[in-house]
């Protein structure tokens, strides 16, 4: 009998660097109140957003992914040739064919990369990070560039007062590679496909949400999944330095933080609030928040952070990471 050879496995992985990109155009609540029935106060009260960034017509999802991915490589001190795989988490490509990852890899300079898109909506980055970590551990990839990029404004009806105030554009990225000590904990992921209709496309064209039902799901079902991710990594809530939930709505972020604190997380745990100035950028929100918090000095290398994504599908995924 002929045995098959396996790729050499590695024990542990970590995030080697992060980067992000946002379009230049800032859109304030007052700007939106000029084109729809809303106010600055109403938006701040409901979702906690003060301003967000919209991409102009000539700035594509793949452009933003290229910029964020290149910055993550630079932050890691690596060259494109140090990476062999690119995963592009997204749910807002303009068309299903071609995928985005192959062209993004080529433009960044990762020639001949293993490259694929991954759609788990707003949970996409955590799904992709877990996949990347396991690819490296299994020896299928040496280093993986994980990008979350979205152009949600292509899929939101511009005067829809429920959704146009929330969603925005941007990209975030992380480089995953081998490590001596574990820097990425086990991913805890899952889905609730029976609730698929809560977040969908109206007329196959515009994002639609059952707002109250989504809010109820996110504020009651996600904290227990976050706790499972902590348990999987062997981390007690009190050991958590940073919480970075998907930036869906500031009130959801705060509800998740409150439940984790009730479970023992510290009062001084840093909680991502990047949504205030970035809006909800779906799969880009977690790496973008991490990069912004790193640049602002709110998180430092070695901090223990919990990432938790959740959204359409419904889908969810989370893991504990050590900040690079």
């Amino acid at each position, binding site marked *: 009998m002929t045995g098959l050879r396996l790729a050499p496995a590695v024990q542990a992985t970590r995030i080697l660097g992060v980067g992000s990109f946002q379009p230049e155009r800032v859109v304030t609540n007052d700007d939106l109140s000029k084109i729809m029935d809303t106010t600055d106060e109403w938006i701040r009260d409901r979702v906690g957003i003060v301003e967000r960034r919209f991409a102009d017509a000539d700035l594509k999802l793949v452009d933003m992914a290229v910029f964020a991915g290149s910055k993550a490589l630079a932050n890691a001190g690596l060259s494109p040739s140090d990476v062999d795989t690119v995963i592009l988490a997204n749910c807002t490509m303009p068309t299903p064919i071609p995928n985005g990852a192959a062209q993004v890899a080529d433009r960044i300079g990762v020639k001949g990369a293993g490259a694929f898109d991954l759609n788990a909506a707003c949970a996409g980055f955590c799904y992709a990070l877990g996949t990347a970590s396991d690819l490296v551990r299994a020896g299928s990839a040496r280093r993986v560039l994980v990008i979350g990029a979205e152009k949600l404004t292509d899929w939101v009806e511009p005067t829809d007062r429920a959704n146009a105030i929330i969603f925005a554009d941007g990209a975030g990225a992380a480089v995953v590679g081998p490590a001596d000590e574990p820097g990425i904990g086990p991913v805890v992921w899952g889905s609730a496909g029976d609730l698929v209709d809560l977040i969908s496309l109206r007329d196959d064209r515009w994002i639609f949400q059952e707002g*109250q039902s989504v*809010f*109820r799901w996110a504020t009651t079902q996600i904290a227990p999944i976050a706790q499972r991710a902590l348990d999987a990594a062997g981390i007690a809530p009190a050991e958590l330095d940073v919480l970075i939930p998907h930036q869906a709505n500031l009130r959801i972020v705060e509800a998740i933080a409150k439940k984790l604190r009730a479970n023992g997380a510290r009062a001084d745990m840093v909680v991502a609030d990047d949504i205030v100035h970035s809006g909800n950028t779906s799969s880009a929100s977690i790496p973008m928040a991490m990069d912004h918090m790193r640049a602002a000095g709110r998180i430092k290398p070695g901090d223990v952070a919990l990432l938790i994504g959740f959204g359409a599908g419904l889908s969810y995924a989370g893991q504990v990471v050590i900040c690079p």
Partner: protein
Amino acid sequence: MSEKPSEAEILEGLGEIVEEVAGVAPDDVTADKSFVDDLDIDSLSMVEIAVQAEDRFGVKIPDDELANLKTVGDAVNYVAKHV
């Protein structure tokens, strides 16, 4: 709860929940008050109130039923009927 709560007990419990979720003084939470128009409670806070009421009273308040609970009295009656 071993016994069904009285309507007065439900009202008192709702008052405490509304205070915690929305910062409304419990004395203002009376049966005739509209959650939205009188107590200035938005649709997302209504979900938080419903979730806490479910835990406290052991009832289910689905989102489509929640939309029908316009006043505090509507909520008291709903809980009393379903507990």
